[in-house]
């Protein structure tokens, strides 16, 4: 069998929800050793273990969704998914991620060891939980067919510009997420956005338990993160990495100090351009498949929206994408039961 190439996409926060409860146990009961190590880390910090969280009888947003718990829970599931990918079938040619998914990508690419990655994720999750402020709101800039809607793009720009007239309101572009914009805002900004963004289905969508990630509102986190985490845990990646600015970090020539500086610097307090990461991933690596790690199913939509934006493989719109995904999906979402098998 000829190997296929794959771009791996690591998920961010908010991907472990009620439906994902028990994800690790369901798919990765063979990875007890990994789970044990993660649990030991959690216990040493006096935190609830991943086994406990994943094995809870009931999902609780207040428990599972907080930065302190969700971060490593997602890390556990995603990294287990990553190691479940069939390497006889796929050559992983590049790895990227969305938002917190960047930390996962660092671990998946070998830049961080599995446990250093866990430590970083857990530390950042706890830091945000304790010191983060503000929040995130998601709003679409595409139409129902997932094509960019210039009117919505303009609307978003206008809101960003108009908001600057009110001093107490702080709103930034947190994530360029395919067909969606994720705003980062302080409390006054969140209120402003909810009041001014036209309602449409479930948008504007405020993300519970999230802070104003990837914005200057979190400037204070940068020195804290740097004092808690050392650059020495960073090693050159063994697989190319694509960051949240669309920059490629190559094996052999990636500067680990620069990787550290980006990860705990700009990555924290400036826009995360997931769209650019996907654009660079498809164009510069032209993979046969894009494998989106679980947990959760929400990441395949922004990936697809960027594919449609770039007319990649001539994807013409949402319906076309969904139709062509049915038999032999180009985007394999491991969080989806019916697609997971393609990655294994």
């Amino acid at each position: 069998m000829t190997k296929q190439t794959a771009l791996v996409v690591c998920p961010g926060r908010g991907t472990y929800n009620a439906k994902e409860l028990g994800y690790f146990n369901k798919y990765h009961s063979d990875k007890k050793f990994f789970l044990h190590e993660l649990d030991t880390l959690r216990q040493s910090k006096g935190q609830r273990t991943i086994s406990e969280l994943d094995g809870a009888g009931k999902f609780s947003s207040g428990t599972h969704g907080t930065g302190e718990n969700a971060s490593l829970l997602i890390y556990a599931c995603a990294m287990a998914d990553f190691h479940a990918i069939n390497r006889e079938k796929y050559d992983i040619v590049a790895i990227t991620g969305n938002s917190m998914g960047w930390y996962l990508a660092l671990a998946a690419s070998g830049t961080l060891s599995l446990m250093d990655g866990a430590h970083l994720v857990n530390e950042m999750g706890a830091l945000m939980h304790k010191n983060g402020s503000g929040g995130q709101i998601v709003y679409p800039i595409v139409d129902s067919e997932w094509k960019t809607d210039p009117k919505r793009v303009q609307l978003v720009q206008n809101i960003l510009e108009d908001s600057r007239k009110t001093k107490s309101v702080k709103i930034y572009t947190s994530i360029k997420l395919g067909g969606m914009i994720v705003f980062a805002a302080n409390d006054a900004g969140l209120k402003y956005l909810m009041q001014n963004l036209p309602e449409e289905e479930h948008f504007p969508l405020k993300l519970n338990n999230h802070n104003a990630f990837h914005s200057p509102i979190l400037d204070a986190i940068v020195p804290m993160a740097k004092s808690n985490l050392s650059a020495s845990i960073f090693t050159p990646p063994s697989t190319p990495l694509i960051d949240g600015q669309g920059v490629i970090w190559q094996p052999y020539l990636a500067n680990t100090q620069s990787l550290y500086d980006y990860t705990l610097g700009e990555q924290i307090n400036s826009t995360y351009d997931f769209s650019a990461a996907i654009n660079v991933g498809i164009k510069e690596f032209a993979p046969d498949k894009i494998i989106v790690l679980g947990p959760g199913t929400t990441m395949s939509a922004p990936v697809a929206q960027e594919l449609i934006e770039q007319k990649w493989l001539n994807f013409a719109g949402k319906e076309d994408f969904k139709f062509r995904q049915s038999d032999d999906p180009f985007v394999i979402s491991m969080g989806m039961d019916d697609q997971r098998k393609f990655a294994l």
Partner: protein
Amino acid sequence: MFDRATVLENAFKEHLENGNFPNIDDVQKPESVGLSPLEFIDLFETQIMTRHLDLMARRSKGKTFYSISSSGHDGTAAIAKAARLTDMAFLHYRDGAFLLQRKKHIKGATPLYDMALSFTASSDDPVSGGRHKVLGGLEVYVPAQTSTIASHLPKAVGAAHSIAMARKLDINDKVLPNDAVIVCSFGDASANHSTAQGAINAACWASFQNSPMPIVFVCEDNNIGISTRTPKGWIKESYNNKPGLEYIKCDGTNMLDAYRGAKQAINTARNRRKPVFLHMKTVRLMGHAGADVQTVYTSMKTLKTTEAQDPLLQTASLLASQNILSPEQILQMYNALGNRLARLSVQAFSKPKLTSAPQVMEPIIPAPCSHKPTPKLVSEETRKDLFAKDARGLTKPVTLAKQINAALGDILAQYPNAFLCGEDIARKGGVYGVTRGLLDKFGPARIIDTLLDEQSILGLAIGAGHNGFVPIPEIQFLAYLHNAADQIRGEAATLSFFSNSQFTNPMVVRIAGLGYQKGFGGHFHNDNSLTALRDIPGIIVACPSNGEDARKMLRESIRLAQSERRVVIFIEPIALYQTADLHNKGDGLWLGNYEAPAQDKTISLGEIGQYGKGTDLCILTYGNGYYLSRQAEKRLAKYKIKTRIIDIRWLQPLPEQAILKAIKGCKHILIVDECRKTGSQAEQIMTFIMENNIQIKTERLNGEDCFIPLGTAANEVLLSKEQIIDAALGLTGVQDD
């Protein structure tokens, strides 16, 4: 074995697999030239990318359309590394490595994919939109162009000169930082082009008199131009002792020495604001282009000697010998990039192409996205101060020359980014006094006396246009345009086309020209051929016939340049500069009052002029022809021939719809064109009248297909008032009694 690309690739792999690298006499550490090992590997990655792109181009016939390789010129990556991103670079077509090195470090860039798109001429190509394989990009400060005949050197010199001008004048739209350096590269064979020689001479001329000229001329010396060898030592002997020029040599086949030389050259140009000639040794691998069979003109021994100097292998050897990378790691990098390019090129090749003429032609005229606002008029008080010395003179009717002079004053006041340059325009005020007094008003930074080289004058305008200026260069006489016409034809006019409207070089080129100087000056001062300007897509050619039109058309021209980014050629009829009278001495009918811009009416592009409403005869003309036709009209009126005279004003693009409207209802059309019979405006007008099936009897009257002689003989080959009258009588069938 004719497939040298494969020979080269096999040799590289074999060396790595067997671990037998070529001997390098002086193995330097990267740190010794200021590079970290990682930075050195970064440059090596660029080399590999460059190599694979060249191999791809050779192995994808029918899918790609360009096979000039960059392999062997890898050292240009070191120049990109040594320079800053904002050091604008006008690149040689073999500088793929330079471009990749720059683009690789732009966040979110997709350099390999973009390059593959350009090889396959896909409309998705972000540089030219599928129009040409050009190296360029707005984000990397590389104007999209090609360098086949070194015609990019004058504009590079212009851009370098504009840096200090922009700093001094503090213009809003400047693109380059005050301490920027210009990089301009070309091959050793191209160094022989007169354009290259002229540009380097102009840089030296400026530098010699301590005018800032921060430019690095990179001569990539691969010792051959297609099949002709460069004489040994020719480049060095030609350039290492030129006044004002610093000469630095480096070995581009050794990436570390290339970086050393490049860094030294860039630093010298930046710190001393002097031109530097960086003589970089390179090798040409894989022949001139894909179809070039080198063995026809080169021995196998020479080929092999050249290939043994493969810079990719040299770098691999330096990396391996210092244990920076193992041969296995190098091979892994090489193969991974090869596979990556193979995959992405399949996708790039499937991307759409331009499929209709309108699509192809779209950016010939810069797209609205490139447009810029027109600055506000200055206050009346500012004008009053500015024109304090001219106030009295401007209260009475003035000549065409004075109208242009005053209009230029108003334009320079309104457009802080406008400047004049040309031969004798500053201190002398122009050979006809048209720019007199402007130096006092605006200073030497904006009214520039240039050296006597039309290529350099236009190059200055193009280069300064890249840096936020809207230049107004002057060509002293129309005949002098012709030794520099390529700067318009091949450079200025093509920039928007090749860059899909991303880059523009707006300007208004003032040219004094046409005949009727009473026998003085001969051909070189009476040249009456505009043909070299007639078929250039996208440019505008304006030719006023009187002072009031000239003033208004000049203002419209500068607006078109500044706001719509157009290249405008403004032809000024020398014979009419000082003409005051039309019919009789002292009638003053060819004078007009100067109006300030705030009060003045406008003449828009394509707006024609009309004198009379007669329908017996319509004369279509311009310039001196209009003046002579107006004289003729008085006589024709005596024959009861009711005439209308159309001043076409805008010769390119020809205002066809306006002309069709103007000739409507007329019984006869006479085209009066002072230029030569062959290739003239009249040919085009006649053709379009035929093509529009206009059933009006039409004739044309031209100057002869001749050069303009001295003395009264000139009148024999230029058309005259009498000829117009005779032709009109003949055409209308009115008997001359």
